[in-house]
């Protein structure tokens, strides 16, 4: 009986092992690429971190402010009708989204925020708008000050996108409250 023992299986075993090792090495490189990309991005902003745990306290304060704005708008819309109700509900939804975004960012580091309303706006739509405009201005200022304190770029970017719209809320509400266009800008 002739037995033909071919050695090539041993070689192919080695090749397969090498192939697997190469794939693992390649996978590791791909997995670490975003890490290096993150470093490159941070390098363009003077080495600012994307996140900094030291920012959490200030961000929790922003979250609390947004939660209280939500509660305030929930009180303010009671009794409103038609377009006024639609407009104020839209702003209420914005604040709900801001609170959710901050909660999402903080994740397990969220400290249960107070949801006590900041005011109880009542009266005509003009009167309600004036009170809410003042609160919007204060909220935008709180967030802007926070941007100046925190180190993390991601949180600063998130807050900047919130302040941009809250500035619009404030100006529009001031206009509804009876301010002139030029004074509503606050130049």
């Amino acid at each position, binding site marked *: 009986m002739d037995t033909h023992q071919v*050695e090539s299986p041993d070689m192919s075993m080695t090749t397969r092992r090498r192939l697997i090792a190469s794939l693992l090495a390649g996978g590791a490189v791909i997995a670490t690429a975003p890490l290096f990309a993150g470093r490159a991005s941070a390098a363009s902003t003077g080495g600012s971190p994307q996140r900094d745990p030291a920012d959490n306290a200030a961000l929790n304060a922003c979250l609390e402010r947004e939660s209280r704005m939500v509660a305030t708008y929930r009180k303010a819309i009671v009794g409103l009708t038609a*377009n006024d109700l639609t407009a104020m509900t839209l702003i209420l939804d914005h604040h709900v989204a801001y609170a959710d975004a901050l909660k999402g960012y903080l994740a397990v580091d969220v400290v249960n925020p107070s949801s006590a309303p900041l005011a109880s706006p009542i009266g005509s739509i003009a009167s309600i708008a004036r009170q809410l405009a003042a609160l919007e201005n204060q909220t935008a200022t709180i967030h802007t000050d926070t941007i100046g304190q925190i180190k993390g770029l991601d949180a600063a970017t998130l807050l900047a996108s919130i*302040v941009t719209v809250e500035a619009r809320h404030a100006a529009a509400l001031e206009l509804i409250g009876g301010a002139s266009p030029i004074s509503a800008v606050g130049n």
Partner: protein
Amino acid sequence: MKNTSTSSPISRRTMLRSSGALVATSAVLAACGSSKPSIARIGESPTMVKLEDLAVTDVVLLRTAMSMETMAAAMLSDSAVTSLASKDSAPVIAAFAAGHTSHLEDLRGLITARNGEPYSETNAKLMRAYGQTALDLVASGKLPEDTLALTLAVEALVASTYQYFVSLTAEPALRAGMVQLGGQSSRRAAIAAQLINGGTVGFAPALDKDGVALVATLPNTFGSLSTVQVKLGPPNEVGSRTTVLMDTPSLNSLIY
């Protein structure tokens, strides 16, 4: 019993021999090579100039912000706008232009404090890309409502620019300054939108009876960084108007 052991066609020795031969051949071929380009070329080829390695620093962002504020002031005070603006909107637009000019002083101080050189020109690339086109369309359309539409677009653009710059700024205190300046433009955008479509009815995005989107004071939940679009100029033969696309400055339009 005959045991025939067949080794792999590529043994270590064969591989070393082949590699050696390959290296030797490569060395011979490389030595025969010429430094002159082998592809025939007709005419003169330009000398390759290596691009300067430029960094996006805080000063670069501030200088670019100055160019954007100057551009906004120039566009809002251009004769194409001032000559067409209505009696009610003209003083508002003029105040907005003055607001941009006043921001230049703030920015100048921030730049000199960082040993940078202030920039007092408009952003030439963006003026060429869409600024001048927008003004030409307003002038040719002769529609007073275009002046407020352009004002809204310019203010939204400046607000987006500052918002975008926050993600590029290294110094946290300066990020807050950027947001503060952008917030002013954001407020002006809201006022311009209210002058176009006023009252609480104008807050939320909506459509008119023909299904055309109306101007909304609060079009987004979060500040948008997408292209600002504005319809300007005379309607064409089918009744549609030119849409001008305005983008925030990018790497090729920053003022280094």
